[in-house]
């Protein structure tokens, strides 16, 4: 079958079973858009800004586990997409980005809308390709999908010059890929796994620390079984929320900079730590020297060898697919005759119980201002804990992570690594595309939402009834919090004057807008909003301007050096 490069591109997407492409047309991709027009298997979602195309495709991948696909034009199309590509890269999200490029004879001549796409994106993709000849197009796209989804996943970009999309070649889609330079490890080393299980059985104060890798590796079920069988405490990172059920008694909450008192203390004082699909990053363990002031043995399971012993030296490294490794661990646990010392474990739980007794997530429930924590608690109740929740970045993100109890994986979608404001709304769109029947809530703030607010228009066009929970404190809340605590109350440029009337704004896009100013109205407003199944509802909650996120570990401090509330300031 002889096809143009553009037709080949679309055929490849069909072969990969791609449902949706999120994108924005332009000069360099006109042939590809023409090929899209002539078929109906792959549906295109027209966003209002390329950054949103990337976030939507990214969240589609996070929610569904399938590879997200975005399509952008050359030059500004690509540069607008870079934030979204970097967001996906930092959180290891499988994506394929197709970008247009100026025709091959024009490359390097500063042509209109030319940019060195491969160069600009190189540090924030798992891999990228410039396709110089139409004959290489199909095999390159095949490789892109393979690389994106295998091993530690990540975004892969395929840059297609306009003439390549116009030229004709025989279309053959390769059945399989083999790359001598890329062979991701899957099975963990049996000897190491045996050693790890033995170490777990010897533990007196064990702790299990779970990151986003367990969600990406579809290993939540295996993890949950293993943790329950062992009877050990478990914490999830921001990216790992939902990997272990948030309502389970063995769950000690999220850890890290805004983690719970009990999770951070258990992390610091455990004697054996099992880390699964997590990477000991600065927001999780704080100051590494402080972390090492206590002795503990560490087992680290990760698919990426470079994540192991990067910030923290570990005793038992296990490189492999987390699901496979956990299954092998489970078998050994089942067969083991030795069991952890029951008395020691009981004492450890007693200690954790005392830490829990601090009730570190308490807040003032008598205030006549709307407390943001209260909004999230009510959101949890009203949605039955069963919504897909996306968030932007800042205080609202932390409150959502702390107060919405995620029992299942792929329900909490946020930009954890890059911390991209503007992620929430387009992410909600991507999740809603993946699951049209699901309840999707975007928890955001008045600053973040304005970074991609144009997507209210996309929601209208594609009937995506996402619910926006705007925690409006008229401040760049997390910046204001740091300025209060670390910069002597000097609120430099963190107050936003001249906010839009979000209710009218939502209405002008054809949606429902509602402003909530009293605590008593929070729950009824949420109930009404979520009852409107087929509409976007923008809920503008006017919250307490001075509320801060606690607990808080100041940047550079130790994990246990927490501020627990305003009284610690």
């Amino acid at each position, binding site marked *: 079958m002889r096809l143009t490069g553009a037709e080949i591109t679309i055929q490849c997407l069909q072969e990969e079973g791609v449902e949706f492409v999120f994108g924005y047309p332009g000069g360099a991709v006109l042939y590809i858009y023409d090929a899209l027009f002539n078929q109906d298997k792959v549906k295109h979602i027209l966003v209002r800004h390329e950054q949103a195309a990337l976030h939507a495709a990214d969240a589609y991948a996070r929610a569904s586990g399938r590879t997200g696909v975005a399509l952008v034009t050359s030059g500004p199309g690509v540069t607008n997409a870079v934030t979204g590509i970097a967001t996906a890269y930092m959180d290891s999200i499988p994506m394929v980005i197709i970008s247009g490029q100026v025709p091959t004879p024009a490359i390097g001549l500063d042509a209109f809308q030319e940019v060195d796409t*491969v*160069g600009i994106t*190189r540090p924030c993709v798992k*891999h990228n390709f410039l396709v110089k000849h139409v004959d290489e197009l199909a095999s390159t796209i095949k490789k892109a999908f393979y690389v994106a989804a295998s091993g530690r996943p990540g975004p892969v970009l395929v840059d297609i010059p306009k003439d390549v999309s116009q030229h004709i070649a025989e279309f053959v889609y390769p059945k399989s890929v083999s*790359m001598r*330079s*890329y062979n991701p490890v899957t099975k963990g080393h049996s000897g190491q796994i045996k050693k790890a299980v033995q170490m777990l059985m010897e533990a007196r104060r064990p702790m299990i620390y779970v990151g986003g890798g367990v969600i990406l590796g579809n290993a939540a079920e295996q993890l949950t079984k293993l943790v329950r069988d062992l009877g050990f405490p478990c914490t999830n990172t921001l990216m790992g929320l939902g990997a272990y059920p948030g309502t389970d008694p063995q769950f000690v909450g999220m850890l890290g900079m805004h983690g719970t008192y009990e999770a951070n203390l258990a992390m610091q004082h455990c004697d054996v730590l099992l880390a699964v699909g997590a990477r000991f990053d600065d927001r999780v363990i704080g100051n590494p020297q402080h972390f090492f002031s206590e002795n503990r043995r560490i087992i680290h399971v990760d698919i990426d*060898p*470079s994540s192991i*012993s990067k910030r923290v030296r570990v005793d038992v490294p296990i490189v492999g697919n987390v699901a496979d490794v956990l299954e092998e661990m489970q078998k050994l646990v089942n067969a083991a005759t030795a069991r952890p010392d029951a008395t020691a474990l009981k004492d450890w739980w007693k200690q954790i119980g005392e830490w829990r007794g601090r009730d570190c997530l308490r807040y003032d429930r008598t205030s006549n201002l709307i407390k943001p924590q209260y909004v999230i608690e009510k959101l949890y109740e009203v949605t039955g804990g069963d919504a897909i929740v996306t968030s932007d970045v800042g205080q609202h993100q932390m409150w959502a992570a702390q107060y919405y109890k995620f029992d299942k994986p792929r329900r909490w979608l946020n930009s954890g690594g890059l911390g991209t404001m503007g992620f929430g709304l387009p992410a909600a769109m991507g999740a809603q595309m993946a699951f049209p029947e699901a309840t999707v809530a975007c928890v955001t703030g008045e600053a973040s939402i304005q970074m991609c607010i144009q997507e209210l228009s996309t929601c209208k066009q594609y009937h995506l009834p996402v619910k926006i929970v705007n925690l409006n404190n008229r401040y760049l809340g997390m910046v204001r919090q740091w300025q209060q605590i670390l910069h002597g109350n000097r609120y430099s440029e963190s107050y936003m004057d001249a906010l839009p009337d979000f209710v009218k704004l939502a209405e002008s896009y054809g949606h429902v807008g509602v402003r909530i100013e009293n605590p008593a109205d929070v729950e009824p407003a949420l109930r009404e909003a979520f009852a409107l199944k087929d509409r976007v509802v923008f809920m503008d909650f006017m919250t307490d301007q001075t509320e801060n996120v606690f607990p808080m570990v100041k940047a550079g401090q130790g994990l246990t050096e927490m501020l627990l509330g305003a009284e610690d300031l």
Partner: protein
Amino acid sequence: MRHILSLLLENEAGALSRVAGLFSARGYNIESLTVAPTEDPTLSRMTIVTSGSEEVIEQITKQLNKLIDVVKVFDLNEGNYIERELMLVKVRAEGKDREELKRTADIFRGRIIDVTDRTYTIELTGPRDKLDAFLDAIDRSQILETVRTGASGIGRGEWVLRV
């Protein structure tokens, strides 16, 4: 500590910039980097001279292995190896200095490959220290220009790095 890393990578456009970009993005030291195609034109062999603690070298090796275009990475310091660098030096050679420079070049097993009535161009190969020693042995003010390739390395004995 100084380490010499040997890499085999796909001989493709952009592979070099991926390696160089990795070093700058992650703040790794780079003393020298050489690269050229091997007897198999689809593969390039690269030698990188870097330095850092054992932890940093381990991370560098892991990060290099993570690059899709990199086929193999080996730290030559893990065994015995030979290191060679090529240097071309143009020196002012006039009067009685001409004989002295010739003698010094001979001692270092250098060859004079270009001559004018006022200059010599000397070719030298060897490990870095030897080339440094030659530059120290002649009068610095005589040096007009030096060109060095950076080190290439290969393991000793039967051991080979190949696909």
